[in-house]
């Protein structure tokens, strides 16, 4: 079947199998490999992308279901060589180690801050519950997200 959608602002149109997952579409068809696959039960959140600005685990969605939607992957978050404030906060607070959960974690955090511009620590911890990290113990991820949110104008 035919799908057309935008990814990071560019239009794409492809003939795909109906069963193709959005994450496989992004990685194999569009060639954007920044979105990682960490599980097969929609538990880990490594494949989180933004669909029309909201975080979605791209392994829970078929490419066909994304027809006409605007997808943002980690490759589309920074602009003009400048890191997005959430990316910068992850760097400044050592919120990543191996980096595999990072694209999904960052996009989940972007979505969280969009919904709750001034979250408490508890808000951040609950808000990121769907994204697993095995390296950082979450301590510095939470710090990074709180710091990024502080930078959001009141």
């Amino acid at each position, binding site marked *: 079947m035919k799908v057309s959608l935008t990814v990071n602002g560019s239009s794409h149109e492809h003939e795909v199998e109906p069963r193709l997952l959005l994450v496989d579409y992004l990685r194999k068809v569009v060639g954007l490999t920044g979105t*990682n696959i960490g599980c097969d*039960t929609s*538990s880990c959140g490594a494949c989180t992308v933004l669909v029309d600005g909201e975080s979605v685990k791209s392994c829970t969605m078929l490419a066909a279901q994304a027809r006409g939607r605007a997808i943002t992957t980690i490759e589309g978050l920074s602009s003009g060589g400048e890191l997005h404030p959430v990316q910068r906060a992850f760097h400044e607070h050592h919120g990543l*180690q191996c*980096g595999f959960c990072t694209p999904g974690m960052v996009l989940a955090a972007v979505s969280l801050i969009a919904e709750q511009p001034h979250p408490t620590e508890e808000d951040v911890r609950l808000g990121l519950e*769907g994204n697993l990290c*095995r390296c950082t*113990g979450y301590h510095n991820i939470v710090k990074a997200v709180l710091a990024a949110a502080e930078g959001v104008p009141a």
Partner: protein
Amino acid sequence: MTTTQFVGTRLLRREDAPLLTGEGRYVDDLVAPGELHMTLVRSPLAHARIRSIDTAAARAMPGVVAVLTGADLLGEWGGPMPCAFAIPGMHASTHYPVAPETVHYIGDPVAVVLADSAYASKDAADAVVVDYDPLEAVIDLEDALSDRVLVHPELGTNTSHVWELNPNPEAVERAFASAAHVVKERYVQQRLLPSPMEPRGVLAVPQPHGGELTFYSATQVPHFVQIFLSLLLGIPQQKIRVIAPKVGGGFGCKLEIYGEELLCAALARKLGRPVRWTEERSEAATATIQGRGQIQDIELAADADGRITGVRVHLLADMGGYLMLLTPQIPLLGAFLYHGVYDTGAYAFSCTGVYTTKTPTDAYRGAGRPEATYAIERAVDALARKLGVDPAELRRRNFIKPEQFPYQSPGGLLFDSGAYEAALDKALTLAGYSALRAEQQDRRARKDVVQLGIGLSSYVEMCGLAPSRVLASLNYVAGGWESSTVRVLPTGKVQVVSGTSPHGQGHETSWSMIVADQLGVSPDDIEVLHSDTAIAPNGLDTYGSRSLPVGGTAVYLATEKVIAKARTIAAHQLEAAEEDLVYEGGAFAVRGSPTSTMALGAIAFEAFSAHNLPDGMEPLLEATTTWDPPNFVFPFGTHIAVVEIDTDTGDVTLRAYTAVDDCGNQVNPLIVEGQVHGGIVQGAAQALFEEAVYDPDGNLVTATFADYLVPSAAEFPSFALDHTVTPSPTNPMGVKGIGEAGTIASTPAVMNAVVDALAPWNVRDIDMPASPWRVWKAIQAGGAQ
């Protein structure tokens, strides 16, 4: 002279940018033209003979290139799967990447499918029909020990080995015979799924024109992989290039030689096309090695004052269906540490390994030391309860004292340095220990539904396994050294080549800081190269918290050699005596003649042009060091967990966590803290959430992240960290490893807190993980408060 400008600072990581923007490439992100996708057909039974395999339907499916069984593939292997850490006299299982006759765990491969897409290969794998003759599963460790059902009948027993460390049996007998108090405990180390966020992955690319193979793997040990691919496939080692690109965590489970690695390499060679395999998460649950898996019996003898006079330990350790690279020795990496941080005198340890029809066990973060620390720290709390002494006070009474270092341990090790009481004191203060005890008393008095538990864990661990001669006495096939080359390029920029293979630990940042200080250059002028056998041909990779004390030291020493050579060149050029030269800020100056200087870049260019070097000197400014340390290093510290338990529901909440660690001098405290944070959560997760649960038929019932509870941010508080600094005398920078300390300390801290909270119900132990159900049951069994 070295000035410290970067070492000790919280320099932000240079590794981050590509990982934050999606530009970092993990194995599954790489593409090789014409690549085939491999899917394994895996046994759904824990123990069975293969009667027949029908591959016809699979072979006829679109996109399928080959379907091969274990029998078809036997000719590919130069030998069985390797075990590089054997025990003399052990009963060793033999196995191959694909089982030819009998399967020994759920997930054991029986056939492989190669197709031109991942979806096509998975579809075809589903169409392979395997007829099994089921055999009885062997799940329980004591049942395995009874030999009621043999996992490997050809061995005649399920016992793989019995290993003892009992240097003075009479002393142990005496200690227990004359003890005023004896504590006898049994603890269970449940099996764990290591679960790095990146599952495993392999891409084997044949290079037919040279008979070569370029091999990408999500591994911690590219150098090991290169050697074993050569030995087991007969490809000359020099024709194999192994690259570990970005690797998404390892935690020990990527310290392995896996059948899927051998398969991709063999099939790429056989078919002349690139072969890729990407592990699925539920596949990883049974196809990747698991951690822990022990029953621990520990006894402490103590005098009337609670001074521990003897420790006796026996382990029953679960090998799983086969012995993998290090399987039999993993429990023994703790063998020397079951007396912990205490000066206990008499000491005896033994371990019996048994086969079961479960996924093989092997290294998982801490590998042997978390198990040891768990047993002694839980037992010390049990002794404290028996004596009615505060657990902090009992620890204090028994610590090895600072003046006893270097300490000759009863297990035969030489502990390099330690100040255990100082770390304890700092942790008690930071946690607000007396206030916590007061709150606990208050809640107990009020019979509050929510009870407070405070758990201590004072640990010591051994890491940076070395020297090589000692590893030989432990029958480890490899050595304990690490290699580094430091190269000042003609333009004055620096390349550092390291034999370590980071997968999240930040070596590029840390190594550049070490070299920047020594050479007096900016870290930005230094590139750190690693994890590619064509670029860093010599190395023993990253595991066991070895990278800084061994690999970082190699970098440091190679840099010293570079400076020594540069000094000789500068003395020649400046017509000065070498001893009159002072090296500072990246240049040599002649003492007393401040205008007579020569910068490192200029020296490097002279070394490159070689127009005017001292007679007999080789051109180029570079040096290689291979460092074989004289001893392990022994990090230590005290962690304190505070839990709240809802006694109506059994729900445990980790309210606060304090960690005071001592890893000697710190190169980058930001990275040190990150390692500790992650370790705490991984160890606490063993205490509260994670367990690989097998049913009696050998089915892993926690095979997905929906069932196996890798915790999220919501389950944890932020942590309070501090440190003490007791430099190691083992290496010139005075450093110790910190990669595993958090995991080693946190499991017993959390479980001691859980048991402490339930003291009013006389609860002595709860099996891990301390789920609400188990905690609630323990409360009910303990009777009314």
